């Protein structure tokens, strides 16, 4: 009877519903992934970290190896070169403006973890995790954007040694949440 086949559809519908629910659960995963805000001064990582300069990240983010906080370069650090280099460029003019006004550059934060997560940069850097592991290929980013979801599952994958086993580390909640 053809009505029979009609009823076979029901389990199918249920399966679809279940799948949809699962997907939606995962959908909330990465909130700010791909976030690429405009910066007060359009700093080209491509020129500094990449290109032919190939500066070491630690040169500007100088405390990444010794502090939970990677550190941002002082305007003074920038002016170290840019009093002489490329002074005519409009962006550099902006920078110089901050320098004369004795103002810090209000950089817009790209990679943000919630306040209840404690991420000690030095532990990761000293463990040999490269900056790119989390921040992506910054040296190739004209405008820096958030490449990874930075959500908890993403962290855990590394800590339990799933994504790259050599970096596995303690993974109880109080490692980061306190």
């Amino acid at each position, binding site marked *: 009877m053809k009505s029979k086949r009609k009823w076979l559809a029901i389990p199918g519908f249920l399966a679809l519903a279940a799948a949809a629910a699962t997907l939606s659960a995962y959908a909330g995963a990465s909130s700010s992934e791909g976030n690429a805000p405009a910066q007060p001064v359009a700093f080209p990582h491509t020129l500094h970290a990449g290109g032919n300069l190939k500066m070491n990240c630690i040169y500007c983010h100088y405390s990444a190896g010794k502090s939970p*906080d990677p550190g941002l370069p002082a305007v003074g650090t920038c002016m170290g070169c840019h009093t002489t280099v490329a002074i005519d460029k409009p962006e550099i003019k902006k920078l110089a403006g901050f320098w004369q006004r004795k103002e810090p550059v209000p950089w817009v934060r790209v990679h943000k973890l919630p306040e209840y997560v404690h991420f000690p940069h030095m532990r990761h850097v000293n463990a040999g995790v490269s900056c790119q592991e989390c921040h992506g290929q910054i040296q190739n980013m004209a405008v820096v954007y958030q490449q990874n979801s930075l959500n908890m599952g993403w962290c855990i994958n590394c800590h339990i040694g799933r994504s790259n086993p050599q970096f596995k580390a303690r993974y109880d909640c109080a490692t980061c949440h306190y």
Partner: protein
Amino acid sequence: MSAETEAAKPGVKRRDFLKVVGATTVATTAMGCSSERVEKLIPYLVSPDETVPGVSTYYSTTCRECSAGCGVVAETRDGRAIKLEGNPEHPLNRGALCAKGQSALQGLYNPDRYRTPMIRKNGRLVAATWDEALTLFRQKLTETRGAAANAVFINRHESGNFPSFLNTWLASQGMPAALSIDPDIDHAAIAANKQSYGVAWPRLNFSAARLIISFGADFLDGWGANVPQQLDFADARAKLETAPRLIYVGARRSLTGLNADHWINARPGSELAIVQMLGGSVTAQQASQASGVDVAALTELQREFAAARPAMVLAGGASPRGMELCLAANALNQSAGGGATIGSSSGINGFEGIDSPSQLRAVAQRMQAGAVPLLMTRGVNPAYTMPKSSGFAAAMAKVPFKVSFSSIPDETSALADLVLPDNHSLESWGDAEPVRGTLSLQQPVMDPIFDTRATADVLASLGTAGATYRDIMIGRFPGGATGLAAALPRGIASGSTSVLVPRVAPAPVVGQPGNGDFFLMVYPSPLLGTGDGANKPWLQELPDPVTKIAWQTVAEIHPSTAARLGVENGDHVTVETVAGRLTLPAYVYLGIRPDTVAVAAGRGHSEAAGRYARAGHNAFDLLPYSEDRSGATSYSFAKAKVTKDGGFSRLVTTEGSARQHGRGIGQAMTLAELAQPQAHESHGEYPGDASHEFLPGLRSPTANDAQGDLGDKGEESKEKGMYDPKHWSGMAKHRWAMTVDLARCTGCSACVTACYAENNIPTVGADWQGPKFMPDRTGFGANITRSREMAWLRLERYFEGGEDGSANFDTRFVPMLCQHCGNAPCEPVCPVYATYHAPDGLNVQVYNRCVGTRYCSNNCPYKVRYFNWFGYGEPARAQYAFPEPLNWQLNPDVTVRGKGVMEKCTFCVQRIRDAENRASLEKRGLEPDEFTTACAEACPSRAITFGDAADERWTVAKLAHDKRAYHVFEELNTFTAVVYLKKVNHPGAAATAAAATAPATSGGH
């Protein structure tokens, strides 16, 4: 969007971006473009060019909260001071710090501080620029040139070079030297000490004594220098067998009295008779007549005193014959102590050269007579601390021009015509001489938050040379700038300063006690002193160590009195003296004479003194003004009428029941019991008992240990995973644990404030922090009347005995914090793993996972979990506990909890992680006793020890095996990580005989 996110401390950073060197970026900018101030800072351990964002820098400086001048180390992060610790190298406090000292931060970040100079324009103080203010000041100085000799400068007493600098400046203006006032100090005792020992405050060598008799000398609640005295006393008591026995004589059992082994409740002012009796000049009968103590007790005292040598006799003079009392006591002490207990070596040099309060009274009279053209005050608040009856505040109106250098508004500065706000001591240069020959250096640990200037700099700029006080300091310092730079890291240097000579006190004014059937006893609060602590929420929220009352002023009466008046806790009583009347809620307190009513001073400031200080009532309004021979104000001599008043208000107290109901929470033992092996209640069968192998680390976390089986049988049990000590993560190798020695703990509550400071715990007692719409409880402490205080670490104060109202009762102080149970009852009931057991033995609370079922708190036998009923941590909310700039103090390493989540003691997990990070940076393991928790670090009696119990090298691992060790509620099989060491009582001969029949002192099960 989770609650924590709004409650973000980086949020704070962002807002303060340009105000101070707040955000990382700015800090580094400042470095880059060489702002002198930052370069000038000489850090404790590392030099400034090595300061790293996100890593704390430590500056050693000097605490100015009282005259003693303890050394503190200020932890600063990204340019903000976030925590004060004691300076371990300082001779006075040796690394400890009292609640008052730690609260200096809330003076620094007090939201009510003067943000600019203020000038009185048509009756109101209005903000002004420094130029305007200084011009006005100069002009007034020139105007008063002629009468300059009559100008008065009242300065908060401090040791060091500033006073002489000030006096030189005054002299240059043709003005008399400043009055150096310390309202918190017992002036009678100082005057007497000067006569008997030649120094203001000799070192009290408790360890040398076998018997200490204190006649109202509250050496643990602010009589003298808190921290050093408490350190010495705790050390003395810790020598269990040879520890001195303490007898307290007084009308009210203060914190010191509660720590005494025996209390003789003599009438206020009658202590002298008992001293004379011990001296032999009076018979026991006469003494009994005078003091209302029965003869037997006195003869027993006589006998015991005669037997015990060396003995120490201390006396505090708050009575009209205070000085006589102190002199007599000192004489007695010298005969009984033979100089061993109290030598003539200077203990607290900071107390030298304090002028008597009667000087202020004299000034008041001169002002009344209109003889004072110019009044300048700095750091003192006589308009409040001088009883209304002294007429000081009223007399100020007669002064044509009044200048205040206070940094925080108070009653006195509110009456001023010009306010030149001083920097906070943590923002300014200076020095102190805590002990003879040693300088304790004071340096700014951060930029001034507001547009304030150090008075020293102001005066310097007004003086001949335009130099800053820092330059003057360098000039005076041996070795100049380099010498100073070399000395600053340790914060102390040898050297001495010219000591002030106090002027001769004017002839004392003796007030009328009036009549009434009660003795009125006004005492300076152990926490708020005579009022300067009242504007600090930490100190307001911190329950009084004795009464456990916060945010409130109560009238303490004896149970029998309460019964007679027909009042219970909270019923209003009216206390009336010749000076005035106050209606206060009654607090029924066992430790007070039936014929005495006691009221703590320090609260009840005027609106002018800021949003926090308004709480409570001002006890000084009750006080008829009177002085003793030394010129000290007499606090306990007036008679009062106490009548029941219809009203009722809930006590703002953290006390549920003051009785243990035989539950053995705070346990004690006598020396006799300590002597015999296994004398303490032997719960041999309970795991974790000191008589057994105590291995908390390997005991608790693995599953099969619920049955007390040690689990680690060598083979990998699948159930253990990271809980296996052999797991690759190595997490289970540690077991963080703590011991609390009740024989040392005096109940001073410094640990509680340390915990507030370290863990961003909100204070909830302010009157705007309750429900906003149709609140059923209002006013200060509304939340606390619902016992919603958030103190992760609370100090429980239990009474044993004395149910019949007799004076013979024992007190147990129990610091109660999360016990970090191995088998924690709170964990299995949490539906979302928000609390679980970490492999290193911590009972972890994950704030951002908590949904707020509060089941964990229901199931916690120790009741140490606290719930965020309102958004205390959310800046947008009315209940926000850290109004700008208090939020600058928040510890960046600790999440600020949002609305609706549970929180509790974490064993300072942020410090554990910090130590682990440091160790891994230095490629090493953790060293024994490398770090400790905030409470342990602050504890002025060194009662708390924290560490890794699974590692034998740590002190805590040894202490956990102590004979006195026990767990609270060990019969619940919770395997707690906090081990208490029993208090040791020293009953007198008579009591020992009694104890033999009935072990009243050991409040076991």
